[in-house]
């Protein structure tokens, strides 16, 4: 039995070694994604292309605008002369945000009537728009406070003018470092994607080649075959976790506050669930194309419903239920907690237990289905 397992592993690693592109498919996307998430996937935006139309030409309007320059968040690309030009700037994509200060701004501000400030954002990227609006509201609120302080030493009525009401997203928090939030998450998403697809493809390839049937007429037992096909990818998954952890902490200075052994335990349970899922997908696919399609179909919802980017608490109730059977959900909690909070088994045991249960269930179902699919 050990001979047979050994030769299965040997074969798998030899095939991987001979595959000239393996290194590109395995390591490069991983590093690339970490870099991309590290630099690009952030909720903090800066240098938003902005066009400005100042119809008031007062010192107050200039003071407000200077606040926009000062933050560095807005990059003034155009000083528009007319409303039409603003529209053109937005339509052509020259600017994402337009700030229009209407005539009478300074006067009404002094009267405490509420000064008209119009902000137009290009809503086609709702994320950027929302974030930009958030900044606008902050800047104007501060400006308003400053204006009130200088004009009315003791404010009588709250001037209702320059307020941009904005519903803020739960995760939008200037104090939180987005990179710290994302990179540990990437450990979960990328490893899941890689391990599930590698396992599914490896099994389906043998089915497609016909080698599966040949192996099944040899004295190997189905469970030995399954071990032979999953352990290598499990190990690759652990390698992924280590790689992203090291890269993330060294390159992006993400703190690693917790115990590496707890991370190892969490990763082990998570990867067992992942190889189980890969094996399960393989039993539904006759060809690699089918496996590819199926993989795509499953992986996307797993990402979306994991809390990787969208908070679970903000999802509709039904979708929240789905997250309960998503191993990624629990692993993300575990990874982030280990990295950022440094908590241990005492706090994480419910998530680890859920991961263990999911891994056991996933493996059991997939092994049963795999045995049946041999016929």
């Amino acid at each position, binding site marked *: 039995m050990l*001979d*047979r397992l*050994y*030769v299965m592993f*040997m*074969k798998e690693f*030899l*095939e991987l070694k*001979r*595959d000239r592109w393996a290194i590109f498919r395995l390591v490069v996307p991983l590093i690339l994604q970490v870099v991309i998430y590290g630099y690009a996937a952030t909720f903090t935006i800066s240098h938003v292309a902005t066009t400005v139309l100042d119809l008031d030409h007062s010192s107050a309007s200039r003071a407000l605008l200077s606040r926009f320059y000062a933050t560095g968040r807005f990059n003034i690309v155009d000083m528009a002369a007319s409303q039409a030009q603003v529209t053109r700037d937005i339509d052509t994509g020259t600017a994402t945000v337009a700030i229009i200060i209407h005539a009478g701004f300074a006067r009404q501000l002094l009267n405490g009537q509420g000064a008209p400030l119009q902000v137009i954002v290009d809503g086609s990227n709702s994320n950027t728009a929302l974030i930009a609006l958030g900044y606008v509201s902050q800047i104007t609120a501060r400006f308003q406070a400053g204006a009130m302080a200088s004009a009315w030493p003791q404010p009588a009525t709250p001037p209702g003018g320059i307020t941009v009401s904005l519903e803020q997203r739960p995760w939008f928090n200037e104090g939180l470092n987005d990179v710290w939030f994302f990179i540990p998450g990437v450990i979960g998403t990328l490893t899941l994607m890689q391990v599930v697809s590698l396992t599914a493809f490896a099994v389906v390839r*043998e089915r497609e*080649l*016909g*080698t*599966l*049937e*040949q*192996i*099944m*007429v*040899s*004295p*190997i*037992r189905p469970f030995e075959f399954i071990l032979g096909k999953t352990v290598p990818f499990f190990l690759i998954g652990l390698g992924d976790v280590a790689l992203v952890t090291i890269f993330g902490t060294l390159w992006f200075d993400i703190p690693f506050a917790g115990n590496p052994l707890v991370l190892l335990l969490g990763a082990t349970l998570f990867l067992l669930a992942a190889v189980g899922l890969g094996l399960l997908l393989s039993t539904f696919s006759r060809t690699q194309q089918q496996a590819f399609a199926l993989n795509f179909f499953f992986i996307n919802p797993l990402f979306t419903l994991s809390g990787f980017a969208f908070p679970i608490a903000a999802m509709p109730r039904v979708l929240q239920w789905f997250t309960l059977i998503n191993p990624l959900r629990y692993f993300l909690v575990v990874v982030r907690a280990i990295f950022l909070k440094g908590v241990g088994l005492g706090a994480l045991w419910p998530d680890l237990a859920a991961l263990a249960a999911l891994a056991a269930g996933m493996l059991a179902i997939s092994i049963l289905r795999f045995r049946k699919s*041999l*016929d």
Partner: protein
Amino acid sequence: MNNGAAVIAQNLVRSFGATAAVSDVSFSIQRGEIFGFAGPDGAGKTTVMRMLAGVLRPDSGGIAVEGIDVIANPEGIKSLLSYMPQRFGLYEDLTVAENIFFYAELFSVPRKIRLARARELLEAAGLSPFQKRLAGQLSGGMKQKLGLVCALIHTPSVLLLDEPTTGVDPVSRRDFWAILYNLRESGVTIVLSTAYMDEAERCSRLALMDAGKIHYCDTPARLKQAMPGMLLAITAADPRAVRAALADAPGVLGLLLMGDRVNVRVDDAARRAPELRARLDAQNIAVTGISRIEPAIEDVFVALVGGGAPA
């Protein structure tokens, strides 16, 4: 169960959904035989082979290989049996030697024996110079021979080959058959399916299959004797016209187009030959020759089973 029989199948039935792939097939194969299944596409040859190999469960019926019940104990036959599927899958990123090594390890062949045996088989297959080549870079015939080497590395006593030489060049086919004859000498029972009729003639016994049933099963010689009527070969520039002209001629039992000639099965060759020539002359169809020939398995298949002949 019979002592001399290496393989016994009784009343095998297997359907896939509404398709009855194999319906009520029984046969028994003696030790040391080369037993062939011949039949058109979809006849059920592969399905029978897979059931014999223990990778597909029959809906009903029984199979014994070397006295072991395959259905009750599929693990029990694995070391005795070797199965080469219709498309033998090789690991294309592994070398010839590594592919062989893989199967040797799966079957726990001791290392000492393995080396000697691999050398011998590679030699016979003409693959010795290519041991370090990646399997993916072999020609079709070489791949098939490598498949055979892999299938034989553990010295099985029953060898199942599903269309082993389909798409293999004539030279490789000769190597292939030389290996099979050698194995037979050493007492290995060989069960194969084939689409090639010349190959079918080399079998010690042949089962003619069509639509999931074995219609006849005997030695090639006796099958030929069982064919009703005699055979006339008519060569002509336009054999299709010949076939059309003779379809309803008296005494004609069957017609089979074979390239530039038509094989006409008649009740009495001596009497019908001049009659047929006269009929063709009357219709102005040029004939290059008419002669009596011995039937080939192809003719026998069409005469006995009817319908489309195997390729």
